[in-house]
Every structure is written in structure tokens, then in C-alpha cells.
């Protein structure tokens, strides 16, 4: 519906405000800190994320609610996705602390950028108007471009940032163009309002479908689905691993939310049209992502192609265009993000001062050096491969079930065939860690908080694999109440 009057209640957006305040505080406080006391801004940033999460948790009772003149919506889906975004960003900060210190990146800038980027993510997740959505997207993207380029002296990082920026700007342009088409056809910027106009048949179909193509392209770009995937491997490889961890986790949740808001919230009347587009994206991503990942010798690139493949799987759930499929896709995204956090976390741990553990060979014999980290990585790899009893299996299971239920058995068969290809390169990591002899014997060291959180994160993959109902049910409920 169109915004009801000009109601400016703002409390549903309190978590976002907390993030903004924290970002500003870090920005100011960091000015007055000497290098030895940088930890203050680090903890301040963590506190900001924690505060946002806390406020979020406290505000569950009155959902769903729209605020800020109908520009902003706090519903159950946003609630769940935001909570996981906070978790991801907080974990990223914990995991990457030593890494950042060793590379002299442990400075106020990265914390501020992480917070503003997170703010963009939450704004996107809660967008209920095209303008809010675009605002959030730009806030997130611009912060990310800067984060990638933060390692100024590394030409690779700068190149990656450049590539990311140019292509990202193009995608933003596509999205804006597509949204303007929808606006032109429906006469409203409100997402739910545009859907109502289309449902009445009040929109020019040609214009909407024309806009839809651009919107789907932009979403595919943000997800990293083939053929809009070119930036993913380069950015993953070029960015500092801490930033790669960031890009690989929370923004995926946001991209899923954008897809939900735009394709389901607004363009659900044209589901038939976008289903076909997503089908192609999904199919190509699964095949190309998994096949090309085999040829990689750099673990960050390998995980980049694996992301592409996983987004293909996620889209397979999404394109069924029913609530079961959406909830399966959401479950898939959340579990993927949790798994990727472990995988990149281990990569971060293996990196030391002046040494990036990004070649696959750096994993050789990890089981003999640090059996526990090898075990965590083993869980993450099997989870990515979709082998039970890890949670990755249930994610694959849900999206395949969603596809089979709408009669896309052939797509399910292709999907499992590509996951077989995927198993090959995940197993290679396991092979390197467990079957090969280590090159050097220095055990991996980590801070206590990193150790505890990474272990909890890794074991969660196993625990959620044994008891998947909790998270699965959460996604179902969140989506059923929101859409």
C-alpha cells in the first residue's frame, strides 16, 4: 500500500541508528588514539554491532511494522537476516584481528567501513521503497570498494578494487534503471504499492518486463551469478583475506533480501518472467562455478568459484516462486554464509606476518600441525560439498526438494551432478590437510577469542547438521510471516 500519511515513527530503525552512531564514534575516537591503543576503536566497533544486535533482539514482539513514512519495514525476514549479518560482521572482526594487525590495517578506517557497510546491508534488508533499497546498496557497495582498496601498497588489491568499483557501479546503474522503469509503469516508489498496482493490472507489461531484465541482472551481479560473475574471483583473490571474508558473508544475505524485496515483494505478478531468467542464471552458475573451481590453485579463487556455484543452488530454490522455495533459498544463504565464515576464518588463521596462506598447498599436512583447525576446515569443506551430517547437506536438500516439488526434476538432477563435481575440489582440500605431509611444522596460533568463536562456528555446522530443524523452521516462519 502507499505510505499511510506521514508517520515518522523511527524506533524500528533503532538498530541501524545504533550502527550509524557507532560508526561516527569510531571515526572520531580513532582520531585521538595512538597506534598502540587502536584496540579501543576495535572494541568500540564490536560494541556497536553488539548494541545493534541487542536492540534488534529486544524488538521482536511488534513485527511486522513499517516506519519512516513507509520507507522502512521491519518484518520477520529482516529480523532474521539482520541478526545473521551482525553475527557475520562481528565474527569477521574477531577472526581478522591478528591478520589486520600484521598488515598494518588495524586502523579506524576498516572498522568504520565495516560498520557503514553493515549499515548499508541492514538498510537494504529492511527496504520497503526503491529509494531506500538503492540507498542501502550504495552505502554497502561504496564501503566495500574502499575496504578492498585499503591495502594501498598492494597493487593486486587496488586492481581488484578498481574492477569491483567499475562493475559494481554498472550494476547499480542497471538496478536504478530497472527500478525507474517499474516506477514509470506503476507510478510509485513504494515496493508493496507497486506490487498492488501490478496486481490490479494497472501497469504496462512491456515496460515492467523491460525493467525486470535490468533488475534481475543487477541482483545476479550482486549475488555473483553467471554470467555476471566476472568480478567475484578477482575481488576475492585481490582483497585482503579479512575483506574477502566480509564480502563472502553478510552481503550475500543482503543480496538475498534484495531479491526477495524486488522480485517477490514487488514483481511477484511477473514471477513467470523472472523464473525463466533465474533458471538460466542458476543452471549456468552451478555448472560453471563448480567446473572452473577445479582448475584453481589459489584457495581464495577456489572459494570464489564455489560461491558462484552456491548462489546457483540458492537461486534454484528461489526460482520455484513459492514460499517453500524462498525459505529453502534463505536457509541455503544463511548456512552458506556460516560455512564460508569458517572456511575464510581458517585461511585467515593460516596467514602470518608477511605470508598469505592463499595457495592450496599451504594447507598441506594441516592435520599434523593443528588437528583441531584441520577438523574445522574438514567440516566446512564437507558442508560446502553438501555431505551429511553437516548443515550444507540440508541446505542442498531443501532447495532440491523445492525444485522437485514444482516438477523441475531435471534441474535437480543437473544440480546434484554439479555438486558431484564440486565434491572433487572440496575433497582436494581435505586431501591436502589430511593425506599430505606438512612443509613446515609451525603450529597455527590464534587468539583465545578467535579460537573459541571459530570452534563454535565450526561445530555449529555440525550441530545444525544433526538438528537442522531449528534454523530451517526459523527461515520458514520468517518468510511465511513476511510474505
Amino acid at each position, binding site marked *: 500500500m502507499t505510505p499511510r500519511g506521514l508517520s515518522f515513527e523511527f524506533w524500528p530503525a533503532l538498530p541501524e541508528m545504533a550502527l550509524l552512531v557507532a560508526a561516527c564514534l569510531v571515526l572520531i575516537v580513532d582520531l585521538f588514539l595512538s597506534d598502540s591503543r587502536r584496540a579501543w576503536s576495535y572494541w568500540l566497533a564490536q560494541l556497536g554491532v553488539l548494541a545493534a544486535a541487542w536492540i534488534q533482539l529486544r524488538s521482536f514482539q511488534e513485527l511486522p511494522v513499517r516506519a519512516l513514512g513507509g520507507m522502512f519495514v521491519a518484518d520477520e525476514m529482516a529480523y532474521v537476516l539482520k541478526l545473521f549479518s551482525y553475527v557475520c560482521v562481528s565474527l569477521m572482526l574477531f577472526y581478522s584481528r591478528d591478520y589486520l594487525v600484521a598488515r598494518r590495517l588495524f586502523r579506524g578506517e576498516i572498522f568504520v567501513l565495516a560498520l557503514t557497510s553493515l549499515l548499508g546491508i541492514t538498510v537494504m534488508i529492511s527496504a520497503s521503497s526503491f529509494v531506500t533499497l538503492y540507498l542501502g546498496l550504495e552505502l554497502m557497495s561504496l564501503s566495500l570498494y574502499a575496504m578492498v582498496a585499503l591495502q594501498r601498497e598492494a597493487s593486486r588489491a587496488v586492481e581488484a578494487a578498481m574492477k569491483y568499483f567499475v562493475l559494481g557501479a554498472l550494476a547499480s546503474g542497471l538496478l536504478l534503471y530497472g527500478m525507474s522503469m517499474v516506477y514509470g509503469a506503476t507510478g510509485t516508489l513504494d515496493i508493496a504499492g507497486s506490487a498492488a498496482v501490478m496486481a490490479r493490472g494497472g501497469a504496462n507489461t512491456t515496460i515492467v518486463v523491460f525493467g525486470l531484465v535490468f533488475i534481475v541482472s543487477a541482483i545476479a551481479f550482486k549475488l555473483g551469478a553467471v554470467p555476471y560473475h566476472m568480478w567475484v574471483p578477482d575481488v576475492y583473490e585481490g582483497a585482503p583475506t579479512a575483506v574477502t571474508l566480509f564480502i563472502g558473508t553478510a552481503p550475500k544475505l543482503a543480496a538475498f533480501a534484495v531479491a526477495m524485496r524486488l522480485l517477490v515483494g514487488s514483481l511477484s505478478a511477473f514471477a513467470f518472467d523472472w523464473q525463466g531468467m533465474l533458471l538460466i542464471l542458476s543452471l549456468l552458475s552451478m555448472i560453471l562455478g563448480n567446473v572452473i573451481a577445479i582448475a584453481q590453485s589459489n584457495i581464495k579463487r577456489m572459494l570464489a568459484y564455489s560461491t558462484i556455484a552456491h548462489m546457483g543452488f540458492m537461486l534454484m530454490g528461489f526460482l520455484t516462486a513459492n514460499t517453500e522455495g524462498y525459505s529453502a533459498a534463505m536457509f541455503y544463504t544463511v548456512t552458506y554464509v556460516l560455512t564460508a565464515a569458517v572456511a575464510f576464518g581458517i585461511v585467515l588463521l593460516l596467514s602470518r606476518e608477511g605470508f598469505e596462506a592463499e595457495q592450496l598447498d599451504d594447507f598441506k599436512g594441516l592435520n599434523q600441525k593443528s588437528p583441531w583447525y584441520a577438523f574445522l576446515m574438514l567440516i566446512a569443506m564437507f558442508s560446502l560439498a553438501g555431505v*551429511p551430517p553437516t548443515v550444507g*547437506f540440508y541446505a542442498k536438500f531443501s532447495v532440491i526438494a523445492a525444485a522437485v516439488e514444482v516438477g523441475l526434476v531435471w534441474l535437480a538432477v543437473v544440480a546434484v551432478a554439479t555438486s*558431484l563435481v564440486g*565434491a572433487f575440489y572440496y*575433497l582436494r582440500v581435505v586431501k591436502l590437510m*589430511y*593425506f599430505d605431509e606438512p612443509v613446515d611444522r609451525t603450529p597455527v596460533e590464534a587468539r583465545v577469542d578467535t579460537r573459541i568463536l571459530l570452534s563454535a562456528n565450526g561445530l555449529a555446522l555440525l550441530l545444525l547438521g544433526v538438528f537442522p530443524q531449528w534454523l530451517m523452521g526459523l527461515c520458514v516462519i520468517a518468510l511465511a510471516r513476511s510474505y
Partner: protein
Amino acid sequence: MSQHLLSLAIWVPIAAGLLVLGLSRDQDAPAARWLALVGAVAGFAVTIPLYTRFAIGTAEMQFVETLEWIPRFNVNYLLGVDGISVLFILLNSFITVLAVWAGWVVIERRVAQYMAAFLIQSGLINGVFSALDGVLFYVFFESMLIPMYLIIGIWGGPNRVYAALKFFLYTFLGSVLMLVALIYLYTVSGGSFSILEWYQLPLSLKTQVLLFVAFFVAFAVKVPMWPVHTWLPDAHVEAPTGGSVVLAAITLKVGAYGFVRFILPILPDASRYLAGFVITLSLIAVVYIGFVALVQPDMKKLIAYSSISHMGFVTLGFFLFSQMGVEGGLVQMISHGFVSAALFLCVGVLYDRMHSRSIGDYGGVVNTMPKFAAFAMLFAMANAALPGTSGFVGEFMVILAAIKSSFWLGFLAATIMVLGASYTLWMYKRVWFGAVANDRVAKLSDLSRREFWLLAAVALAVLAMGLYPKPFTDVMHASVSELLSNVAKSKQ
């Protein structure tokens, strides 16, 4: 406790395995060994009541346990055994004790991880045999790949990486298709993953054939049937002794078990329609692989091919759709579990001393290891299906059933008797008999106490089953009749 016997059979070994993992420091290795043995024995002990309290004469599922697990997809933690599956749980738990014991002194690196892998795998396999829910079955079926992958890859021979990867990918290939089939059945049954409910589900022949293909690939790879058997010789040759034992004795049975739990009762029309196809593949396995086994220069490879040939007999028995045939197949599975385990243990005994599996390196072992030669003779005879050993019972039943359905079928099936005897006894002659071949053989020492009792335990089982198979077959009758009545009913 009795209502949780199956859960105990699954979780006792897994819990023991996790405890053992805690002792992963090198100086804790002796403690890890003992804890693993205690865990394995306890795991076997909790399965014994499954047999003693088993109600003979009913085809109903027994010791049933139900718990809601994933309500979102109506998946339940549903366990239960009938006369077909109960024996395999006992067999598996028994073999696990042997496998742990077989690795006692041989494994020196990362003992805790080794022992834990076997224990966890044992629990998972018990889960496969007792799961009555499709997803639960699949979860166990897939997760049991992980320990075996690590066992082959970490403690295996020189070419272990290749073998481990091949093992994993082959079996993964089969099972992912099955996943789609399971989900499809869930959809058409209106939202149920209960295997027993699927038995009543009407399906058109075309659907049945497609589902048959999906399930067949999964289980045929596991059995393994010709022509998807090529992973097995590699895996066997590279795996450590304990790994080979479990692989041959148990994991192959999982594939054959899938046939009787899923394919025959859920897809009866397709099973009858495609019986000729399966029988042909089985006969090729029996005859052609039998010949292949004959020319193997490597003992482990020879036994691996012999396993394929014997398992071909099992699938042959199943697809004759007669009481005698199916029961013969099941008996053959159990017997082969004992015999192949024993043969791999024998090869392990030799390999630990000589570090060679090549038949050409041996000769005249009987002169230096008389006790060992006696055991090996018994197992060789059992492999060749000599009456009085367990190998005879199953093969005889299947051959009888085959002759009943067609003379030539029986004739071809019976070649296993000839071929089995040839390759086994020829190997026996070359390794054990004759003059002492070289100095290294002359220096061999006879069985240690551990090895003696290890082999004695299996020998006892082989003889008991050969001389008095009734306790084994009695358990099966009712369930097999029920299975056959399911197969006879058309579901179209």
C-alpha cells in the same frame, strides 16, 4: 533400555569414537587403543539383545523407535529392524571389534584418529541398517563415506590418495541421484519419508523405471556390480588391513541391503521388468570377474575381485524372486562378511611381516607358519564354498533357486564354484605350499597371540554358520516372505 537398543547400537560406538579422539596425543596411543577396544566390544555387546530378543515368525519391524526430527519435511528419527537387517547390525559390530584389534600394533601414526574413524563408521553403518526413514537412511549412507575416505587416505598404501578419491567420488555419484529419487518419492507420496509407507505407494511403470535407475546406480556402485566395480580393487589394495576388512565385510553389504530395502519392495514392477538386466550384470560379475580374479598377481586385488564375483551372486539371488534365492543371497552376504574379512586379515598378517602383497614374493609359507596356514586353508575353502563352511550354504541356495528358474542360469551361476575354487586354491598353492621361496619367507614367524585369536574368532563363525545355518536363516523367513509378497504385488 530395550526400546532404545537400536539407538544404543548406533550411538555407543560413535560416542566411544568421539572419546577416543580426545586422546589424540602420541603418548596417549596405548590408552586410545584400549578405549577403542572397550568401545568396540561395548558396541557389539549392546547389539546382542537385538538377536536374543528378536521375535521370530513376524515380518513386523521390531525395536521401533520414533522421534520427530525435521518436522519441516516430515522427517523422523525412525528406527527399526526386521529379519533382513538385524543380522547385519550384529555382523557390523562384530567386524568392528576385529578391525580395531587388527590395527592394534600395526598402526603407529595417529592411532586415536584411526580407531575413532572405525568406531564412528561402525555406528553410522548400524544407522544405515536400522533407518526406516528415507532421509535418515541417506544421512547415514553418506556420512559413512567420510571415515572410510580418511582411513584409506591417511593410513593407506602408496597410491592411497587416488584410491580414496575414487572411492568417495564413485559412491557419491551413486548416492546423489538417490537423493533426488528419495525427494521425488516424498513428493508423490504426499509428504512422507517413511520407507514402509512407500511400500504401499502406487507408481506407474515409467516412474518406477526411472526411480529404479536412480536407486540402482547408488546401490550397484556400492555392491559393486559390474561395470561400476572399478573403485573396489583400488580401494582394497590401498586401504590398511582394517579398512579392507570393513570395506569388504560391511560396506559392500550396504549396497545389497539397499536392493531389498528399497528397490524390490518400492519398485516391484520395475524390478520384475528389469530383472533380466540385473541378472545379466550379476552373471557377468560372477563369471567374467571370476576369470579376472584368476590372473591377479596381487593377493588383495585377487580377494577384491573375488568379492565382486561373490556379490554378483547375491544380486543374482535377489532377482530370482524366490524364497530360496533371496535367503540364499542374504546368507551369502553374511558369510562373505566373515570370509572376506578373514582373507583380508590373512593378507594383513603376511603384509605386516613382508610388506608385500604380491603372490610372487611368497611360497612355502606353510613351512614357517603352520598355524597360520591352517587358518588360511579354512578360509580359502570357505571362499571356494566347501560344504561345511559358511560359503557353501548361501551359494548352494542361490544355485538351487537359479536352477529352478532356468537350467542355464543355474549352470552359469554354478561356475562360481569352479572359478572360486580355482582362483582361491591356486593362490593358496602359490603362497603357502611348495618349497620356501626365499630368505624372507624362511624368516617368517608364526602367528602372535593377538593374530591367533583374531583369526580363531572368525574361523569359529565360519564353521558355525557352515555346519548349522538354521539360527541365521530362521530369523529371515518371515521377513523374506513378506518381501516377496510385496514384490509380487503390482503397484501400477
